[in-house]
């Protein structure tokens, strides 16, 4: 945690110290640290000349800015009605089964966090999920086994939606 001060300062240098720079800074902290710690928020408050309460109050509004530690790979399974109709439950069951955790939990090795989330914009290709920022669609329990194995091994899976 000693590193947090120079890190936050570098982010403030990069994005700026105006109030409107707060979210980009918090977003980058979560992307790299997988958590928005109290120390980080206090540091951000100091850099941007805001109260810590102000920073916390803002962060707590956004579901992607977690103040509890998440794993390195955050799995967010879409729970929209269409996802449910297309077999979301089997996907979540399979994930729980492989990762040996329940929805909302993180694996003991800190690698995976399993969450459910509202519509992620792939209703035409349900069931779907995000792993960090990458979308995975048309999921099946078999595909889940493969994707998770690839993440375990390489920290990624090329099974995601291909862009272009």
């Amino acid at each position, binding site marked *: 945690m000693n590193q947090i001060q120079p890190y936050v300062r570098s982010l403030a240098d990069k994005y700026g110290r105006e109030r409107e720079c707060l979210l980009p800074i918090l977003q980058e902290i979560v992307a790299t640290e997988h958590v928005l710690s109290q120390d980080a928020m206090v540091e951000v408050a100091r850099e941007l000349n805001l109260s810590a309460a102000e920073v916390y109050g803002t962060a707590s509004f956004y579901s992607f800015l977690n103040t509890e530690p998440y794993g390195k790979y955050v799995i967010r399974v879409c*729970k929209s009605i269409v996802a449910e109709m297309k077999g979301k439950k089997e996907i979540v069951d399979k994930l729980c089964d492989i990762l040996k955790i329940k929805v909302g939990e993180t694996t003991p090795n800190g690698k995976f966090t399993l969450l459910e989330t*509202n519509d*992620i914009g792939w*209703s035409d290709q349900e069931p779907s999920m995000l792993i960090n920022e990458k979308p995975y669609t048309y999921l099946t329990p078999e595909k889940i086994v493969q994707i998770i194995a690839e993440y375990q091994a390489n920290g990624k899976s090329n099974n995601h939606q291909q*862009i272009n």
Partner: protein
Amino acid sequence: MAPSNGLKRVDVIFGAYASTKYLILQKSIRREKQEIIQDIIDSGLRGRGGAGFPTGLKWKFAAAQPGNEKYVICNADEGEPGTFKDREILMKVPQKMISGMAICAYVIGATKAFIYLRGEYQFMVPDLQKELDNFHEQAREMNFDLTIELRMGSGAYVCGEETALIESMEGKRGEPRNKPPFPVVEGFHGKPTVVNNVETFVNANMICRIGVEEFIKLGTQDSRGSKLFSISGDTPKAGVHELELGMKLSDFVAEFGDDDTKAVQVGGAAGFCVPRKKFDTTIIGFEGMPTGGSMMLFNSSRSMYHVLHNYLEFFEEESCGQCTPCRVGCQQLLLGIEAIKKQERPASYLNQLLKLSETMKIASKCGLGQSVANSFSSIVENYVEEMIY
């Protein structure tokens, strides 16, 4: 009831034309600003984000505001359940959207614009940034002064509401403001701001390309142009389809249903549920049932209780909690239908819940709380038995 326009497929939004040289912009910035605004007004274009405000008027108001600090914001928050058409534009033809934003900036006199992209679409950022870099280069060559920045959401549906979006862009909690003042008068940093949907900007660009005459050949009197539909659920043709507005829902179901369609949810969780018996008398368009484009089909194997329950859970989670009718109302509606289902409450309790949803429509501060009654009453009233047994 207006006559049906039939179901007509169109292919202009993703159609061949997409210029990395921004030729439409180049042409447009040599035209009189008033003339472009008049074109957008004459085209009858209405916002594609759901509310359907006339785009030309919005631009005209913003252009008429004094001062030279103004902003253009592209609303790419696309959080409505069952919507994914902006995703396709952003991935396939971002130039058309960026060009539309730039034309808007030109006519209202803005030099700064933003794309507010939902956090769930983070994966698009590298490609979008590349296109923005190209745009900035082209703009420099045209001597056109405009910077477009990407801003990310962080998983909050309500941030798609334009004033919440602005709060979020200012680095605050995404809590909707009271309107008026509207963003065209006091928006980002209190300055005049145009907020339009992704598809609206593409349409504005299209009008500048093909002209008003051609544009108004599409659609009906009250619903000009084509519309992207996000089609999902019990359909063999899930995906984004471009159709002319003004069609009968029965024509739509004939094309996209699975021969067993029981209901169509038009406009997402915030929209309306149309039961089979009304397919024939429902027109999709501003003269009938307007929609941001989300069309979820349900066949007879689906429980409408289950559908409503899912929507209410969604609203209950996404309500920002700022005003009581919405915060408490969403909870009570959800608990209420659960209690009736478990027979802890009599069926007549549904009437009280319907009244509550009507109160939310009047007393809530923003469109989120105001629109819960749409799906609530349209599902409850059409499927009473499914709610009780």
